């Protein structure tokens, strides 16, 4: 095993059982700075080593990437990768060709991007996670196989890498050690974007080789295309869930809630991440309470593809992303809604408003829920009592919504209006760090990947949270609320708080924005937030 300090991109083809092992992690802030507050990182099980690619850093992100059983299988694996690699520079990839070529060709290797990366920082600047490391491996392979200079001059122009199963499999795994948060691109003096290259590697694996993490593909986009939701929630089950939530809301809060479903010609078709109905049902309930209180003409859809906003294709497969985005748009159009409003789900925002924006000309307007929520507060259509939220609150900025869409202020305006103890994380807004759950990490739970997500990818975020609540953490009588208006970010928060036992030990809570708004509603007879009861 190499020392991380000696690791170079061309080492990806080495025959080591494991290229590096993580030892040093960024120290956590108080109260997690004491010995014994964190479990040590574990080694992969021997059986995993035989079956999967644990030879990168010991973690398994791609659970469908299994070791070849013969030399022929290995050769075919390499051949398919090279075939896909060639295709990303062809007209099959027109939708990203210009940004890809720019980022591929012009890197000056100044390393300015490194310090912007939360994974690189969390691992005490481990070379393997330097943003340009994987980009450079990709460049070396391209140079070796597809450029005249590489074929003639080899190492002189950087084409000095052994390409075998290990190289390619490690590169595939390494593409899942990047959250695609694009924070590094903000700091590049040339405006280059390493996340594009990470995603292109994922695309080669999925679109050409048929290899992608099960939660993203088989149980993600494929399940969604088949059943309408990546949760597997069918139309009858969805309608049952709504009915249950209506009864539950009446029982708990005495509110007679009726979710409008399939209302033709509604002003708003509200699209939730269906995971909310399963994991955080209080979120769609809070939306319904607020939209009714504000007198909005809105509806949910029970049509297949109409009740789940997710689009995991965004993270690994352009073809899947387009299929889903177009199907969702068709449902919205068929319903005759005047606009589609995306609820608290970051990647769904980006998929439908940014990526989806240039997939078809036949669209209805798509809007984020955040300006709508701020408008309800600003216009005083809701009677709110901020004193009901008189506990420390901080805001997590989902990368997709903030850095990649520029929706920065509305959610802050709401919190400033209804949370007297709102405080920002450092840094925040467009400079904020990823939660560590981005680009699929939040739902990738196979083998030991959750350990990487929680203790490595979410580490900087956890420190940001601890910093925001400095001086309040150890007082367990005070709830401290992390407002994360995004389903995937909430998934990462859930993993973090569970792993560090932070709710039990320090009364650290998390949830969305609408829950805080409903909690502040004057009309509520009891707290909407369970931890206040």
């Amino acid at each position, binding site marked *: 095993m190499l020392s991380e300090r000696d*690791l170079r*991109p061309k080492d990806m083809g080495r025959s080591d059982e494991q290229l590096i092992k993580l030892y040093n992690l960024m120290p956590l802030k108080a109260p997690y700075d004491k010995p014994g507050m964190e479990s040590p990182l574990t080694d992969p099980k021997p059986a995993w080593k035989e079956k999967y690619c644990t030879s990168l850093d010991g973690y398994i992100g791609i659970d469908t990437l299994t070791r070849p059983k013969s030399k022929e299988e290995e050769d075919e694996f390499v051949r398919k990768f090279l075939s*896909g690699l060639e*295709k990303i520079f062809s*007209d099959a990839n*027109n939708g*990203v*060709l210009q*940004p890809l*070529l*720019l*980022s591929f*060709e*012009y*890197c*000056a*290797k*100044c*390393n*300015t991007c490194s*310090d*912007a990366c939360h994974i690189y920082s969390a691992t005490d600047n481990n070379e393997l996670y330097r943003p340009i490391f994987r980009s450079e491996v990709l460049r070396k392979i391209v140079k070796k196989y597809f450029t005249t200079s590489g074929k003639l001059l080899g190492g002189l122009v950087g084409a000095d890498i052994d390409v075998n199963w290990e190289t390619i499999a490690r590169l595939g795994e390494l593409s899942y050690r990047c959250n695609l948060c694009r924070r590094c*691109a*903000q*700091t590049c*003096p*040339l*405006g280059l*974007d390493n996340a*594009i290259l990470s995603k292109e590697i994922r695309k080669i694996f*999925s*679109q*050409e080789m*048929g290899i992608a993490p099960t939660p993203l593909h088989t149980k993600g986009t494929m399940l969604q295309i*088949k*059943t*309408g939701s990546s949760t597997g929630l069918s139309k009858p089950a969805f309608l049952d869930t709504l009915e249950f939530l209506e009864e539950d809301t009446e029982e708990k809060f005495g509110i007679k809630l009726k979710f409008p479903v399939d209302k033709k010609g509604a002003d708003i078709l509200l699209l939730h991440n269906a995971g909310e109905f399963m994991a955080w049902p209080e979120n769609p309930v809070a939306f319904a309470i607020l939209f009714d209180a504000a007198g909005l003409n809105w509806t949910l859809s029970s049509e*297949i593809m109409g009740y789940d906003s997710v689009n995991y294709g965004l993270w690994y497969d352009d*073809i*899947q992303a387009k299929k889903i985005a177009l*199907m969702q748009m068709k449902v919205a159009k068929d319903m005759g809604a005047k606009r589609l409003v995306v609820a608290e789900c970051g990647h769904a925002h980006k998929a439908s408003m*940014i*990526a989806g924006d*240039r997939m078809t*000309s036949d669209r209805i*307007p798509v*809007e*984020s829920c*955040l*300006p709508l929520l701020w*408008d309800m507060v600003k216009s005083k259509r809701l009677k709110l009592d901020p004193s009901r939220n008189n506990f420390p609150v901080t805001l997590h900025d989902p990368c997709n919504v*903030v850095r*990649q*869409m*520029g*929706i*920065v*202020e509305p959610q802050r305006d709401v919190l400033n209006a209804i949370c007297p103890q709102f405080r920002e994380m450092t840094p925040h*807004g*467009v400079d904020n760090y990823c939660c560590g759950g981005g680009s699929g990490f939040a739902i990738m739970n196979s083998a030991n990947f959750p350990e990487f997500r929680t203790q490595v990818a979410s580490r900087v975020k956890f420190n940001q949270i601890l910093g925001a609540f400095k001086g309040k953490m150890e007082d367990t009588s005070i709830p401290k609320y992390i407002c994360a208006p995004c389903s995937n970010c909430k998934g990462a928060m859930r993993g973090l708080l569970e792993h560090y036992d932070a709710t039990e030990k320090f009364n650290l809570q998390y949830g969305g924005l609408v829950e805080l708004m409903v909690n502040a509603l004057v009309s509520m007879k009891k707290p909407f937030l369970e931890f206040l009861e």
Partner: protein
Amino acid sequence: MILSIIAYISIGLLVGISVYKAYQFARMPFHGRMDLYPVPKEKGFEHGGSYYEELDWWKKPHEVSHMREIVEMLKEILFIKTLFENQRPFWWISYALHLGIYFLMAWTILLVAGGVFELNGISVAVSSSNILALLLFYLTELTGYFGLALATMGSGLLFLRRAFDNTLKKYTTPQEYFNLLLIFVALITGIFTWGNDLSFGYAREVTANLVAFKPFAASGLLTLHIILVGIMFIYIPTSKMSHYVGKYFTFHKVLWDNNPNLKGSGVEQQIKNAASFRPTTSWSAPHIKAPAAPEK
């Protein structure tokens, strides 16, 4: 005469290949949105926001401040702002090189102007009675000294930093050392060629001869310098040192392009055009050709 031809051809190729590269990038297929905030042209959202912060955003005009975009662009071009903010130690040497190049570009133009003056019988010297010629003289001195010093120091230090920094050297290929070395050597030969006459009278005389295609006696050092500069001019646009071309596209056509797809917009038309394109290559994974119809 041959040196004049080399000078003209190399400058022509530097400009020509750069323009051709820009043309190639400009005619690349319409791509998906990859905006990254802050986007400086967003008027009224200087905190890093966008029109998506507005309710009913599609009903309101998308207000764009080209002035802010130009100012940001100039900060990048003139000061390499992003590097200054994010990696100050590296900025010092990188900026020395880039600022040196800007000075040398100005110096070249001033030498040409001075050469034309001389060809027309107007002396460009400290004793000149012509105000314009005097101004030319001093500006040429200033840009020449600073340009040669900064660019040589910058390229040399960048080379050394890459060679001795444990991280940078892992990522630097021999070709990339060559790039810096080529610039450095071309500049060093320049310093030795022009350094004997700190008034740059000799440089102006040679430039005048090059401009006028007049034969002149060239020393071995001058010949080497012109050939090296010529090679550098031709090589730069073919290498990744042509990032001056790419940088326009990365910012303006990728990170700062957030033009929405609205009815009747240019973006809508481009999407329609792109939709009619049939790629010649296709992906091979089994699910790509799978039917997209959901189960009812």
